[in-house]
């Protein structure tokens, strides 16, 4: 158990008190999740100082409900990114399964809500497994595959709906009511997100499946040598991402009570941005659940806070961009040397210092 605890961005220092030097140099590369959590708290407090209304229970409740969908999508996107992949099709998948569940509920209003949700989940799973098959078993590049399926799924939404909107009066009442229904004071959306966090935390941290994903991301070739069935793992990773997108598709459509072709257009990049802010390396093998959750929360806080402090909502996208860029720059500082330095300079200086008198002798 204690052996495979190092799932954070950088393996923590060994047992006992780390020496000062390694603590200083490790400042840039140690896990960022606490830092990010502090940043989010500080941001909330700062906004609260300007606009006390932001700190009320009602506004916090809104914030949590708003962040549920990006958090859920960021969780599975994180698993995909950990395997050195990327899933650009989540937003289109979300739109397609959302539209299909809306059409299903429209044509069969008497269907129990649980069945509709299960259908949305299964549709998303099937769409994700198509990606997974192409990426896992045919070993095609993930970015190309999901770029293609993104277009196909988005187009299919249009074909299915005929370009028409499915609006709230076409949907049964309990279909719309479920996401914002409350259980012990919190909306169902928040509970579902919490459930997803717990389940995926367990999967990523304590199951063979989850650990295999990290192994694949760290070194696909080595993962193959130690006997990890990469194709099968990738197949189900993208399936998982699809299933989550399917679930979120239903939730999105039901929450906003409308389904049309362009829902969640461009949302895939927001989800990936949340992962990047959470310290998940696009190069694979690095990242954990808390990072994904905090990254998505951070974006949600920015989005919800801007109207509160009377900054034009048009700033939202620009600020998001700035946050992403600063996050990656901070994340990269620890790795910069390793990537760019071809010859280890400190090794040479050490060598010269110790071997300086000897170098005069003819070779």
């Amino acid at each position, binding site marked *: 158990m204690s052996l495979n605890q190092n799932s954070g961005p950088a393996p923590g220092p060994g047992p006992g008190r780390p020496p000062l030097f390694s603590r200083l140099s490790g400042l840039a590369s140690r896990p960022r999740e606490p830092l990010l959590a502090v940043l989010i708290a500080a941001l909330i407090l700062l906004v609260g100082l300007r606009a006390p209304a932001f700190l009320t229970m009602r506004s916090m409740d809104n914030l949590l409900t708003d962040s549920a969908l990006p958090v859920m999508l960021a969780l599975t996107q994180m698993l995909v990114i950990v395997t050195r992949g990327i899933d650009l099709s989540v937003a289109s998948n979300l739109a397609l399964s959302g539209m299909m569940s809306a059409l299903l509920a429209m044509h069969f209003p008497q269907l129990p809500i649980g069945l509709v949700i299960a259908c949305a989940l299964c549709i998303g799973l099937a769409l994700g497994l198509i990606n997974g098959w192409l990426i896992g078993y045919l070993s095609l590049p993930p970015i190309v595959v999901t770029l293609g399926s993104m277009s196909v799924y988005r187009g299919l939404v249009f074909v299915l709906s005929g370009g028409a909107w499915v609006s709230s009066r076409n949907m049964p009442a309990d279909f719309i009511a479920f996401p914002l229904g409350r259980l012990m004071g919190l909306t169902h959306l928040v509970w579902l997100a919490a459930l997803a966090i717990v389940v995926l935390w367990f999967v990523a941290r304590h199951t063979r499946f989850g650990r295999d994903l990290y192994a694949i991301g760290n070194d696909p070739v080595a993962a193959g040598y130690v006997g990890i069935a990469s194709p099968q793992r990738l197949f189900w990773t993208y399936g998982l991402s699809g299933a989550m997108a399917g679930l979120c598709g239903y939730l999105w459509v039901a929450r906003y009570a409308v389904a049309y072709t362009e829902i969640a257009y461009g949302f895939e990049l927001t989800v990936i941005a949340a992962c990047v802010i959470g310290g998940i390396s696009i190069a694979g093998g690095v990242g954990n659940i808390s990072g994904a959750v905090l990254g998505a929360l951070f974006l949600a806080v920015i989005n919800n806070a801007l109207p509160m402090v009377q900054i034009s909502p048009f*700033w939202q996208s*620009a600020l998001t*961009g700035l946050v992403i860029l600063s996050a990656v720059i901070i994340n990269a500082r620890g790795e910069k040397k390793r990537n760019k330095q*071809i010859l280890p300079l400190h090794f040479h200086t050490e060598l010269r210092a110790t071997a300086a008198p000897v170098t005069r002798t003819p070779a």
Partner: protein
Amino acid sequence: MNIMADTAPVKTARYDIGERGSFRIADLLRQWEFLLGLLLVAVFCINCLLLPHFLDFYNLADSTFNFSEKALIALPMALLIICREIDISVSAVIALSSVAMGVANHYGVPAVGLFVVGIGTGTLCGLLNGLLVTRFALPSIVVTIGSMSLFRGLASVVLGDQAFTNYPELLSDWGQGYFFDVLPRPFAVLIVAALAFAALLHCTAWGRRIYAIGNNPVAARFSGIAVDRYRLMLFVLTGAMAGLAGCLLTGRIGSTRPNIALGWELEIITVVILGGVSIAGGAGTIGGVLLAVLTLGMVTYGLALANIPGIIMTIVVGALLLTTIAVPRLLRGKATR
């Protein structure tokens, strides 16, 4: 040293470079560009047979307006992808440069100056991307996702919910005008740019080095190529071309709106990959990209004539992309790992 000399006394080079093999049809069929060419001809013929108004020269010329701007960005994007980089922010650069032109126009900058403003803004955006990627050794996909958000955000901050209109005549001349009354100007610009890029990539040492970097950046660095300088230059070039495309697009539609060029980045990347450029870097040609652009352009035009909504086109493009990468892989069988 001695042993080497004994066994191979005549050879001076370390490797044998074989003679170029004789011409075979099978080799031709394995060429991506050849297959794309066949596809283009097939699409063209099918359209001619099914659609009575397809083979109208003026219609054909006008259909190039739809893809010229995207194709202009696809050219440097191909270079970037060959070099193992990518730029997601191009459509946001178009938006920002279009907004910059709108602001400049508002303050009375003359028409020629607008082109300078547009292309200059694009160049600066590309420079920012390039500096972030090379100075901080960041993965370009992450940087450009961030800068996409930033550029589009800045554009929408300046623009608000307004739109810039009243652009001078010169701009619309270039955006929707013709040379000699037949050749659309954006298409002419595209042809010139494609020739320049093809010459740059395929006929100069500069181009060969891009392939070298794409095949193995570390080996390229070891063999004395200033890898980071090339990357930076490519990002700047992409930004400049996006700025140019922004000028033409603004001229064509005559206004700057918040959703200008929304979602183009993924379309452009799709075209580049369809053109046979390997996403893993190190392979691809400008000819292939141009053929892919023309093929998709013809399909779009045919669908438009057949009165099929444009979004069906996204299914076609996506399916085409998936099949073109999956079929060769299925035919080849198990991958060698």
